[in-house]
């Protein structure tokens, strides 16, 4: 029994369906994430990628389906889960600084009423440093660039010290420095044996950044290792006719038209 619990996959989703006003946005999706892998969740606009992520986290209600995290309910395993929401989901003019936002990653473990102390501050500084943002710790968050804001969100998730991470479009609209920082971070998480599920939109980088891929278009089209699953046929199935396969310097790359 104990062995089984240890071997339980980081995330197992079965038959999850989300509907907004009777229209299914995500339909009957089932998959299991392998431990210690970087997983891309890709699909066309409106395919329900973010919705699926939010449904797994219980942020939007699902009409059917089960989610199990390390073999148990999300409620019980909450401490092992870190979450990076889309950057646009908050008001960056909020009166707070980068360090304070990162410390929010500790609120779940702090419990009620207790304020973050020196330990939380140190941890927050360490994670800020990991994303290359230590010098901006006391900067008001509206004074940060989009990429820097994204890195603050990543640092906050790191501060959660989780085993399974969910990231909603972390690469969307970021500068080159941030993209590099995120990739380095993903590598580090992988080496530490963490599992990361990333909603991703840039098909040309999937092979380079990820091990495993989920192809979604309302339904789950395919799932598996990048080498065997990220194929032109599967992509056509997912994106319909809106795809072109471009050969760049001898290497085959897939681009969205």
């Amino acid at each position, binding site marked *: 029994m104990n062995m089984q619990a240890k071997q339980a996959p980081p995330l197992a989703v079965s038959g999850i369906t989300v509907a907004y006003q009777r229209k299914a946005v995500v339909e009957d999706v089932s998959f299991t994430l392998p431990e210690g892998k970087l997983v891309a969740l890709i699909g066309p606009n409106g395919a329900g990628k973010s919705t699926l992520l*939010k449904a797994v*986290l*219980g*942020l939007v209600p699902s009409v059917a389906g089960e989610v199990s995290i390390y073999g148990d309910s999300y*409620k019980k395993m*909450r401490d092992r*889960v870190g*979450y990076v*929401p889309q950057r646009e*989901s*908050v*008001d960056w003019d*909020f*009166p*707070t*600084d980068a360090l304070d*936002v990162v410390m*929010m990653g500790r*609120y*779940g473990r*702090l419990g*009620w*009423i207790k*304020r*973050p102390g020196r330990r939380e501050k140190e941890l927050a500084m360490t994670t800020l440093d990991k994303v290359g943002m230590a010098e901006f710790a006391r900067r*008001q968050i509206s004074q940060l660039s989009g990429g820097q804001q994204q890195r603050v969100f990543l640092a*906050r998730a790191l501060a*959660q010290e989780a085993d399974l991470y969910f990231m909603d479009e972390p690469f969307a609209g970021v500068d080159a420095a941030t993209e590099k920082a995120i990739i380095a971070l993903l590598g580090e998480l992988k080496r530490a044996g963490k599992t990361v599920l990333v909603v991703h939109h840039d098909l040309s980088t999937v092979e380079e950044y990820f091990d495993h891929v989920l192809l979604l278009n309302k339904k789950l089209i395919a799932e598996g290792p990048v080498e065997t699953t990220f194929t032109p046929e599967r992509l056509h199935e997912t994106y319909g006719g809106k795809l072109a396969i471009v050969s760049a310097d001898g290497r085959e790359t897939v681009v969205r038209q």
Partner: protein
Amino acid sequence: MLDWLISLWSDPNTRWILMGCTLLGLGSGVIGSFTFLRRESLLGDTLAHAALPGVCVAFMLHEVKSAGLFLAGALLAGVAAVFCVSAISRWSKIKPDAAMGIVLTFFFGIGTVMLTHIQHSGSGSQSGLDKYLFGQAAAMVTSDVYTLMGVSVLLIAAAMLLFKEFKLISFDPGFARGIGLPVALLEHGLLILTTVAVAAGIQAVGVVLVAALLITPAAAARYWTDRLPAMLAFAGVFGALSGASGAAISTLGEGIPTGPVTVLAATLLFAVSLLLAPRRGLLSRALRRRGLRAEYARSAVQRSGALEAAEGGERR
């Protein structure tokens, strides 16, 4: 001026009223900061206008004027109004702001009809209920001031104890839900506290204007700081100053309503903040822009000078 201030303080009755209004402004300013940051400013207005029928029903049922009863009436009516707003926006395609507009005016309409009815009935003409429209601090009695004190302590204590939770649900409710905070419960708690602030404020400031005590001090405070704890402090002080000046000035003459004066004072503080606050204020921004422009112009002159020198060198 000084004589006037001394006379305010020496009259025990006025002193009480002054204290009550100051505390009210303090508590409203602090809790209103969260309302402001959550972009729910219209909600305060809805709660306030909805309070009128609540107060009227409380009076009709008991035929006495009592701050506690009116507070309860205003609270219940506020909760009913919020329920209506969320029902409308859930079951129809109408957006919350429109739903609030509908509910706010509907409740206020009912309240006004009730108020007119009470005014024309026998016992009602002395009820002083009409004062609830624009507020009359002078009508407060000692027990009212005690109520205001209790309310302020409650608001400030709640804002301090639940500071980190309220901050998180205001900044990033999705993340808050993700880490297991009972976001809906906290949101309702904040809503109840806002309703309490509004209900407590209507006697002094009136249903029409009491929402200003939640929003205007917070909006002014935002200009002075980029830190939430400091913002709460600024908003509290601005609210207290507004409440105090409203109460003080309305003692100058019979029939000067407290609410409008309080709101004018708060708006004055807001205008000063908007113009003169360091860094975020309009003046400071304009100066900074001018400085940048001058600096750029200087460096442009230098660059073109260097360019000319280089070209001259080439020609030679």
